[in-house]
Each structure stands twice: as structure tokens, then as C-alpha cells.
């Protein structure tokens, strides 16, 4: 009797060592949480580059199908990183959006004259506003009269 009972009572237990696996899983979890970066999407803003033609200066166009925008920083308080349309007074980007870009024909050629002392971010903000208004005919020119002060 004793023999039979022992045979029936012996249960084979299948054990998986979970503790070490949990250790590794937590380690991986911490690694991925720490090294994770927020997904930032990039965009590419294109335009036509300045030509070698030195005659292409920053004189405002008389043609209605063209718009000249200057991005300047001349170091003076009133003209610090400001936008000027067709040689006019300084504008903020919001004013450019509301007064110029909203009703502009998408076929209009935009000539951008970015001064060498203006911050690059100002040009990108302008290109972004033009992209918002579906204006794609963009030409970038350099004004040789403005000296660069690095």
C-alpha cells in the first residue's frame, strides 16, 4: 500500500526560472525608455539659388507678378531681423501672412534677399510661411552691398 500511494503522489513539476528573465526584461525596458527620443519629422524647404550674375541686385521689381522680400539685420534697433516687402517698412511675419501672402497668386515669383547678418531661423520662418501659402516660385539672392560681420 505504501508503495502505491507514493507512486501516485509524485507529481512532475515543470519550472521555468522566471526571476532571471524578469531581470533581463526590466533591464531592456529601462534601456529603451532612457534612450528613446521623441519622433521629430524633418522637412526640406527648397528654392532657387543665387546666380553668378552680379547684375541681379536687390532692386524692387516693378512687375506685379513678382514680390521682393528682404530679410535684414543691420544692427540698428528698428531693423533687427525684420522683413521688408518691395523696399517698404519693416513687417512682422504675421503681417506678411495677412497682408501679402493670403491673396497672392501661386504663380507669383518671390525674390528673397536675405542679409548675411540675419539669423538663419528668420529665413526658414519666411520659407515656412510661403509654403503655407502654396507659393513655390522662390528665388534666393545675395546682396553684395551688405557686409558680413561674423
Amino acid at each position: 500500500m505504501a508503495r502505491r500511494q507514493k507512486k501516485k503522489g509524485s507529481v512532475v513539476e515543470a519550472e521555468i526560472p522566471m526571476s532571471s528573465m524578469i531581470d533581463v526584461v526590466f533591464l531592456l525596458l529601462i534601456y529603451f525608455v532612457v534612450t528613446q527620443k521623441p519622433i521629430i519629422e524633418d522637412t526640406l524647404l527648397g528654392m532657387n539659388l543665387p546666380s553668378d550674375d552680379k547684375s541681379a541686385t536687390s532692386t524692387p521689381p516693378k512687375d506685379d507678378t513678382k514680390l521682393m522680400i528682404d530679410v535684414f539685420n543691420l544692427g540698428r534697433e528698428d531693423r533687427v531681423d525684420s522683413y521688408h516687402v518691395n523696399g517698404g517698412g519693416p513687417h512682422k511675419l504675421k503681417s506678411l501672412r495677412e497682408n501679402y501672402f493670403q491673396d497672392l497668386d501661386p504663380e507669383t515669383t518671390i525674390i528673397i534677399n536675405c542679409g548675411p547678418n540675419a539669423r538663419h531661423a528668420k529665413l526658414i520662418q519666411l520659407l515656412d510661411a510661403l509654403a503655407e501659402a502654396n507659393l513655390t516660385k522662390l528665388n534666393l539672392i545675395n546682396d553684395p552691398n551688405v557686409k558680413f560681420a561674423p
Partner: protein
Amino acid sequence: MARKKRREELEVADIPISSMIDIIFLLIIFFVVTAALDKEVEDEVVKLSKAPHGQPVKKKNPRSLTINVRPDGSMNVGGVVMSTKKIEYTLRTVANKWYPGNPKNLPIIIRGDNRVKHGHIQKAMDAVTNTGLYRVKFMAVIEN
């Protein structure tokens, strides 16, 4: 009786986890290393300007050249600091190698820092135009 006890001890089923962990670590190392290689062209020092209305880049052309312009005005390609002349040389070499039929088709991406003055970006653009290339785009981030 002693024999029976030994048999019971041997009957415990065990799954070998250690080899599985070895393989998992091997795969992790592989993915981490290959992901790092993909990001090598992008200079972490350069903080891009925001352009929330730009079209997102779905798939970047692997045969494009990226010029990074840091806040101090220094330029680098793939992490290697270069002068304007060296960039011109690199552009010519890469354009002829990647686009032997029409080297002018080489797309160039300028990653300028948002604090850098445009004069430094002009230097990079001058290097591009001096080599006869024209397909230039500025990189920005879509972020509100």
C-alpha cells in the same frame, strides 16, 4: 528506495533560457549599431528651425549630401569639419561618383543651426554654386 528518489529528482523539466538571452542580446547589439550608422550624417549640435507647414520627408534620398552648419559657423559633412574649398572638392567627387551621367543632379541638404547667421549659410551655398550644383534644400523640423 534510493534509486526511486534519484529518478524523481531527474524528472524536473527545465527550459534553457541562457542561450535564448544570448541571442536576444546579440540581436539588440546588432540593431543598436545599425541604427547609429544611419544617423551619422546628422550633427547633434545643430538645432534646426521649426517649419510646421513644410511637407514631411517620407523617405530620404540615400544619395544626397548633407552639409551641417553649426552655431559658430563651422561646416561639416558626415561629422568631418571642412573648409569651403574642401566641401567643393567633396561635392565634385561625390557628384561624379553617385551621378556619373549627370553630376548636377546631386541633391544637397543644408542643415543650418537656427542661431547661425545667414552669412555662414551663404558660404555653404557659394560652395554648392561654385561646383555647378543647384538642387539645394534647407532642412527644418515640423513641430508646433
